[in-house]
Structure formats: structure tokens, C-alpha cells
């Protein structure tokens, strides 16, 4: 199982994501520059956090035109997992791979702290190693993380079990329906504001991000055994 972590000018959680994969799974992982036009040979693609292109215009707005994003869209269309964390979530919404968008936090503050989130569904390749309803502790670090979508879209997300994480206690950014992470309808593209890659070691204050990576390995192994 091979991971690609996409690196944009301004990404700053790329090394963290690669480290988490190495530490939790011991799986091979490459940092892939955003000018790369192909992601052939990778099983999972991660769009990490940071400030791609300095968040110019809007967070994620410019990054989506990088050559690699065509390859990310192809990877997603082939049903393979794509994980967007924080700025990666913003990029995936701008690219149209996930519905809705992320607004400035209602507090106008950049929030950097550990929050609690509830795993709302385990029926994804990203969460099958969690328990449904499990409350986990993950760090957040964002100024623009308030998930927003119109009422029709929110109703669709609920109906199709696409809300993967909700803030469990305090909502740190004013997101609609306390949403912290969603998947697409095909369930293979996940966007989330909390950082699972920063929660894989006791020294970091939590290990609750580790099962997300274990989930990816488990569902990949299941697919390899039973065929896609």
C-alpha cells in the first residue's frame, strides 16, 4: 500500500502526514510536488494542511489549478481514497470534489487547540477502525474552518450518511450542523478540519488519529483480498 502526500507551495503539514503514515503503518509514502501530472501507482492520496498559494483569493482557490489536481480527480473517480486535511479540505471543496465550502471561523480567531469530535459513521475506508459514536480528541489549527453548505446540500449529506465527524462538545468555528468532516457520495473522498496526522503519539497529546490510518490499511487489505 503506497501513499502520496501532495506538496503545494505553502503546504506545511506534509511532513507530519508522511511521518504519521510511517509511524502508524510503516507503509511507503512519497511527498509529491504539485506539478506532478500523474499519481499512478499510489493507493491513497493525501492533501495536507497549510496555506497553499498563501490562500490568495480564497483558501484553496489557486491550488485547485495545479497539474496534480487533475490526477487527484482521476484518482478519486477511480474510487481510490483521497484525504484532505484542513487546507486540503478547503482545496477539495474548491476543486468540486466535495460539496460546500469553508468560511472564516465565527469567532474570527485562528483556533489552535485539541477538540473533541464524534465519529458519526464507520462506513468509510477512513473510519472503519473506529467505533460508531466514538468521541476522539484531535487537534485543530485553522482560521477558516466553518463548514458551510446550503440547506438542500446539508439534507443530502445527512440522508446519505456523509457526515463523518461532528464536533462533540464545543463547535470551534461555527460550522453548519457541527460538521468537522464529510465524505463525497461515493465515500472515497474525505475532507476534515481536525488533524489526525498530528494525533498519532502520546507526546502530541493524543493518539486518536492513528485509527484513521489503520482504517485505510484495513479497507485496502480487504479490497486486495476480495477484489475491488
Amino acid at each position, binding site marked *: 500500500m503506497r501513499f502520496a502526500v501532495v506538496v503545494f507551495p505553502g503546504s506545511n503539514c506534509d511532513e507530519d502526514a508522511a511521518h504519521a503514515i510511517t509511524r502508524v503503518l510503516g507503509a511507503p509514502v512519497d511527498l509529491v510536488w504539485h506539478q506532478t501530472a500523474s499519481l499512478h501507482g499510489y493507493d491513497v492520496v493525501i492533501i495536507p494542511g497549510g496555506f497553499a498559494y498563501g490562500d490568495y*483569493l*480564497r483558501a484553496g*482557490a489557486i491550488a485547485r489549478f495545479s497539474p496534480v489536481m487533475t490526477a487527484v480527480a482521476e484518482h478519486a473517480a477511480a474510487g481510490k481514497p483521497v484525504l484532505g486535511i484542513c487546507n486540503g479540505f478547503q482545496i477539495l471543496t*474548491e476543486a468540486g470534489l466535495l460539496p460546500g465550502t469553508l*468560511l*472564516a471561523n*465565527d*469567532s*474570527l480567531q485562528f483556533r489552535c487547540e485539541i477538540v473533541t469530535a464524534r465519529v458519526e459513521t464507520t462506513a468509510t475506508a477512513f473510519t472503519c477502525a473506529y467505533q460508531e459514536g466514538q468521541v476522539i480528541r484531535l487537534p485543530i489549527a485553522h482560521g477558516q474552518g466553518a463548514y458551510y*453548505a446550503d440547506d438542500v446540500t446539508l439534507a443530502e449529506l445527512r440522508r446519505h450518511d456523509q457526515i463523518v465527524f461532528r464536533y462533540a462538545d464545543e463547535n470551534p468555528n461555527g460550522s453548519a450542523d457541527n460538521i468537522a468532516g464529510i465524505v463525497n457520495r461515493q465515500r472515497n473522498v474525505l475532507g476534515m478540519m481536525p488533524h489526525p496526522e498530528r494525533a498519532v503519539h502520546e507526546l502530541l497529546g493524543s493518539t486518536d488519529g492513528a485509527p484513521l490510518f489503520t482504517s485505510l490499511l484495513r479497507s485496502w487489505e480487504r479490497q486486495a483480498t476480495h477484489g475491488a
Partner: protein
Amino acid sequence: MTFLARIQITLKPSVLDPQGAAVTKALGALGFDEVSDIRVGRYLEARLTAQDEEAARQRVIQMCDALLANLIIERYEFSLVEEAS
């Protein structure tokens, strides 16, 4: 022909604007009590060439839809002025 497009992008009325609310509050603190609602938006100027004004208008609409505005939360309006070349 060369045109100058002045593009204003604002949040849709249905989208909360915490930045605007903070500015409104700050103006109130300065004594501008008559101000009740500030909405913060973005202003862009684009210089472009086109065969005529209608062609320029179509191109500006395309660029707003494709990149400059996020139509989930924003709307835009613009004016076009022909410039002497």
C-alpha cells in the same frame, strides 16, 4: 479594444459575515451609531482586451464563475469601461 472591469464580490445575504459584524461593532464604538450592517467583500480590477463590450462582458462572467467568486457563498457584479488604447 481594451476594457477595465471593476468587479465587486460580496457574500450572499444568507451567509453570515463575522468580519462585517466586527467592523460594524468597531464603528459603533467610534460613535458611528447610524451604521447597522457592514458586509465585507472583495474588489478586483481586471484589464482585458475583447472585440467589443459584449464579448468583454461574457469573458468577465466566465472568469468570475470559474475562479474569482465562489458561487456557493458569494455573488458578484461588475462594470466595464472602455479604455483608450
